[in-house]
């Protein structure tokens, strides 16, 4: 009986030839990532358990990106960044990307890719549920809490239950009005927010492999919104080209066997799919954009690990070019690299920065910003009864700030089209 790509990677990490879904195994972790929200409590637990003077298991395998609450006056939030800074100093940690320096990156999941930590065939754990994003590189990646992360910090090991795999195949050529966001919203509507709990979501098909790494990361990023332990896309020449440009570290490409066993399989023809939204207050509350068009908005938001990559802004620029937004529109590049690209990447010869500025958008510095609400002074945070359309990943009650606000999740094309009219708008009307 064959194995899936996930089973093969986990078997290698556990030092076994074969692993089976449901089996509990101990993994050797290749990379541990943390940030300013969960890093300080992780460090606290690690010190409690291993002692104030302890050294971490492998300083080259621990990566820290402050990214959540960065540009705020909140003293507790700033204290958390200070704890990370002290820890990095004390452990002589090279892989620390401090705020206020040239090394500052922004949102951890995108920074992991850009800085060459995403390596096919490896196992990455992170103290953030969207750690599944890295699975776009043909690797196993998943989120854990502080205790598990502290355990890894001290031992390099963690237990995990081998997941069953689900396969999602997208056939056909991507139409210009669709993005990876629409594909994952389609799946979420079909399987709901616990449809993949404790499972690996494997994405396949010519439409998936026609996407660049940024768009692939949108798919794997939202695996957790279906409860998925991980999302994964087999590495191909597109993956290899991206990785080689950023690191000379070695990697290994794994493929699912033809006779691998899946818990379930779903197939889609992308030419038949439509632009979608997730209506308030759940990522699986799917509707077509057409079914909610005309809904009045108070804010538009383009940013986050899900929807703040350069490709997301290229999609938005296509619609915002030469136009003016009708409602406040917030632009948050996921990383400093994406922010720098705003001044280089162009549409019709005009830079993204000029397009967004001329359209009346507000552009922030890179961070997680209002994707998860955050302190009161967070850029773009929802207030009162705001009705927001956003490229982010969650629209739970209160997620973007105000408990009274309503959030629609959509693709960058749909958000940009809606910014032009002030009501939810199908991007096909503007393309």
């Amino acid at each position: 009986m064959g194995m899936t790509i996930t089973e093969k990677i986990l078997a290698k990490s556990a030092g076994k030839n074969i692993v089976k879904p449901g089996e509990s195994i101990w993994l050797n972790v290749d990379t541990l990532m943390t940030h300013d929200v969960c890093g300080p409590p992780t460090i606290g637990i690690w010190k409690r358990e291993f002692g104030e003077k302890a050294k971490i298991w492998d300083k080259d395998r621990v990566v820290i990106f402050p990214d959540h609450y960065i540009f705020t006056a909140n003293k507790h939030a700033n204290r958390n960044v200070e704890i990370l800074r002290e820890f990095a100093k004390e452990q002589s940690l090279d892989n620390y990307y401090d705020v206020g320096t040239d090394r500052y990156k922004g949102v951890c999941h995108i920074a992991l890719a850009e800085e060459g930590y995403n390596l096919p065939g490896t196992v990455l754990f992170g103290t953030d549920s969207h750690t599944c994003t890295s699975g776009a590189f043909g690797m196993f990646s998943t989120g854990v809490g502080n205790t598990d992360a502290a355990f890894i910090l001290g031992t390099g090991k963690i237990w995990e239950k081998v997941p069953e795999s689900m396969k999602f195949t997208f056939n056909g050529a991507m139409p210009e009005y669709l993005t990876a966001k629409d594909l994952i919203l389609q799946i979420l509507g079909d399987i709901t927010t616990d449809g993949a709990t404790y499972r690996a979501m494997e994405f396949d098909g010519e439409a998936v492999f026609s996407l660049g790494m940024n768009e692939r990361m949108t798919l794997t990023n939202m695996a957790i919104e279906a409860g998925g332990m991980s999302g994964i896309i087999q590495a191909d020449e597109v993956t290899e080209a991206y990785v080689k440009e950023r690191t000379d570290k070695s990697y290994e490409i794994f493929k699912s066997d033809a006779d691998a066993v899946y818990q379930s399989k779903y197939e889609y023809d992308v030419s038949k799919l439509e632009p979608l939204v997730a209506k308030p207050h759940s990522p699986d509350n799917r509707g077509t954009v057409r079914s909610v068009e005309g809904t009045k908005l108070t804010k538009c938001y383009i940013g986050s690990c899900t929807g703040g990559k350069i490709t997301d802004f290229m999609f938005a620029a296509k619609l915002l070019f030469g136009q003016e937004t009708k409602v406040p529109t917030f632009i948050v590049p996921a990383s400093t690299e994406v922010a720098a690209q705003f001044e280089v990447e162009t549409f019709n010869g005009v830079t993204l920065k000029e397009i967004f500025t001329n359209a009346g958008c507000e552009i922030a510095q890179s961070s997680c910003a209002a994707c998860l609400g955050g302190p009161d002074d967070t850029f773009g945070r929802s207030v009162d009864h705001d009705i927001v359309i956003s490229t982010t990943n969650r629209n739970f009650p209160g997620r973007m700030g105000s408990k009274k606000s309503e959030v629609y999740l959509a693709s960058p094309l749909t958000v940009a089209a809606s910014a032009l009219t002030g009501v939810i708008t199908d991007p096909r009307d503007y393309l």
Partner: protein
Amino acid sequence: MNNKITGKAFVLGNNIDTDQIIPAEHLVYSMTDSEESKLYGKYALSSVPIQESGLPGGGIKFVDVGKHLSEYSIIIGGANFGCGSSREHAPFAMQVAGVKAIVAESYARIFYRNSVDGGFVIPLDSTMKINDKIKTGDEIEIDLDQNKITNLTTGTSYQLNPIGDVLPIIEAGGLFEYARKTNMISQ
């Protein structure tokens, strides 16, 4: 491990996500400072929409204003309890508020792991939907040996699924305690 847990029930619906359990704006407080960490109890379950807070009627605050301890120590949930983010602050906030156990139909993976590995609260799964059978305020007894939850107010019992693989970690009191007991890490 104490094999019987008793307390008052606080009943919730399906898909209680971690943003509802502890909103992100509160994740900045220290989890090690015993005074400051009481704030996690104060804000536990504070973003559950009020009409769904304390079923069946709703409208019940889990923690009274100005307090960090709740009068309810057993949470009764539906499906997919704890979905969303990886924040360990979620089961921690419940522990600070005085919660001892959760009984739900199913859990999101990271919340379940965090509850068990951090030794914060015991997550148990019911074999059937029970959040429509128990009312907020009912007196509850959980018998871990018998895998049974009893509503002492009505006298009705319901079966729980056995804890399974993670029982040794729960019995030890968390992942580190388990690892020391089994000599995975030094004493």
